[in-house]
């Protein structure tokens, strides 16, 4: 990322509408997350990374692509921090700046099977690409 980290953090806060300072570090998000084991930066860490403006690590992290947007952390967060929204905002920044990073049209045919619903493709495109 070429923008300074401070600005990036600002942008994440703005897009997500989340104030990471509200976090009391209870870890309920990470306790709740079904993708926890796949993530390199865990949901609760994600919040403090934004707080500390450690953005470079975030945009490189696998977490962006492992979050399911299932909103379990959003629902259960006792402080209304909603880590899922932060993760999505970071993902937005990445796909907006880098374009199709995580899903390229070329790889799609091999991912398909006869039962696969359109909904899945549509959703994945929305999440993974600009």
């Amino acid at each position, binding site marked *: 990322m070429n923008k300074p980290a401070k600005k990036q953090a600002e942008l994440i806060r703005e897009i997500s509408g989340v104030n990471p300072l509200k976090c009391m570090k*209870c*870890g*309920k998000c990470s306790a709740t997350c079904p993708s926890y084991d796949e993530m390199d930066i865990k949901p609760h860490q994600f919040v403090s990374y934004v707080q500390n403006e450690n953005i470079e690590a975030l945009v490189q992290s696998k977490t962006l692509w492992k979050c399911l947007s299932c909103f379990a952390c959003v629902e259960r967060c006792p402080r209304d921090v909603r880590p899922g929204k932060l993760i999505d905002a970071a993902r937005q920044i990445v796909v907006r700046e880098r374009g199709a990073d995580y899903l390229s049209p070329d790889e799609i045919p091999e991912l398909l099977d006869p039962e696969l619903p359109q909904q899945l493709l549509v959703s994945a495109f929305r999440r993974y690409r600009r």
Partner: protein
Amino acid sequence: MQRIGVFVCHCGSNIAATVDVKKVVEMALLEPGVVHAEDYQYMCSEAGQAKIAAAIREKHLTGIVVCSCSPRMHETTFRKAAERAGLNPYMVEIANIREHCSWIHKDMEEATKKAVILARAAIAKVNLNTPLKPGESRVTKRALVIGGGIAGIQTALDIADAGYEVDIVEKTPSIGGRMSQLDKTFPTLDCSACILTPKMVEAAAHEKIKIYTYSEVEKVSGFVGDFTVDIRKKARSVDMDKCTGCGVCQEKCPSRKTPSEFNRGLNTRSAIYTPFAQAIPNVPVIDREHCIKFQTGKCGVCAKVCQAGAIDYGQKDEIVTEKYGAIVVATGFDTIKLDNYDEYAYSQSKDVITSLELERIMNAAGPTKGHLERLSDGKAPKEMVFIQCVGSRCSDNRGKSYCSKICCMYTAKHAMLIRDKYPDVNVTVFYIDVRTPGKNFDEFYRRAVEQYGVNYIKGQVGKVAPQPDGRLLVQASDLLDNRQIKMEADMVVLATAIEPNPDVRKIATMLTASIDTNNFLTEAHAKLRPVESPTAGIFLSGVCQGPKDIPETVEQAGAAAVKAIGLLAKDKLLTNPCTAQSDILLCNGCSTCANVCPYGAITYEDKEVNDHGIRETRRVAVVNSALCQGCGACTVACPSGAMDLQGFSNRQIIAEVDAICR
């Protein structure tokens, strides 16, 4: 025309360094009504006060303005000085040229200009001041304590020991409160009942204390020193004088399916019942909603078996009206409803319980006779999980924003007691922070870890999932190990947030005592007046003011008692003379003012008036100056300007406005 003296204080250099005090004196002398002006180093000193007194006498002053520090600091001082010199104290006004001027401005010319204007406003006001006289009101030497838990009992005992009459009003059939439901108490682990019961007995036996159980406060009127309270004594259906407390009626009662309030619904009780064995008074009540006799007309077993003939199905609610000088609120708390926390499966599994329910399970008189067992199948648990901060510290409107304060300690207590009694049970506590300020408190918690091997894990639980085999899968964070834990447990205990007793809002409204967004009663000053409500004559005891444990509750109960005693010890109270007054010639009798009065101080009377020769009877507003606290809401609501506030009249304030904008 007033004869006004103006006194400008240097306050050492606090004022004089930034304000040209001589200039203020000079300018003040130009104002209408001013016949004397002088400055002095320290007006509040004895010498300064003597100067004021001398000027009042020599120049026959009718009003004075002191240009000095904030009236919140020395208004009383100068009023007293004026009074000693024969001037009505309410003819004194303060121009705040320190906090509002010299301390915040740097430029001397600017600060001086402002000081002159502030003095001018005060002079304009004094020109319209009238002498006021505080009223007197009597003090009824009796206190009311609302709530019969440990807070209420302690307050009542302390007041009674000082020689004043006290009445306790308790909603449930017995005094004792939450503390009577507890098994052991931290940090000493003595049995709760063993320390509480003697206090209950002492209160019941005290000749100065009268206890109304199964009763509620219905209506409060009056004011500090002279409250009138209606107490509803709910029909007990049992004659208190005849009942011997033998308990046969409870044994024989055929209706046995009502969840026991005392045991938090973990087992059932009969329709005629005393909440627990040590209840005071030891006289049962009939729960009419669940009584077969009351519901169907057919039964009457209790009356048949009662040797004393104490059962009285015809008993009716009774209203007792009493007068009190002081009221202490000690309404306590309850645990929150867990409807918003279904991820912890409280409603889905019997083996997910609250800490207060665990108290009952651990208690020898409880539903399991003190055996630690799963409520679903009666089996002994092997693996127990405690979850902290359930509903506390939540800013998402599902729970409470505050820390419930007692949970860390009682969880350590529970964990320790379980490990002590059942060493083969593993205990895991999931916490966010462990908060243990207090004497011997942290040591207590460390003992749980170091001596008893309780496993504390930093991280919140996300979900409790009941498994087909009846065990509970707990999914949690371990923040220090940075891993997600999935562990099976046999029982899960939720450290449920506490909240003020829901009835407190109703009571606060009756008392016009202020209450915060969490329904805790507000104290008059967070630091300096923590046991008084801002409403005079109302005192706060126990958790109704904020979360606290037993020692703190008892401390505060004593403090509230001292404040109440201080009030009861007075024979008379002086009332604030800055109250609203209605001009009966202007009053329309429209009732608008009464609608906004927070104290019910305004009533309407049909009064004979003489309006420039026309005599007629009119409906007019009358202010009870003992009730009026002088807020002025009525004066603005009044469409005709009939209502005005003494000491802050419309003309006085307008005169200030004019002086500032001149």
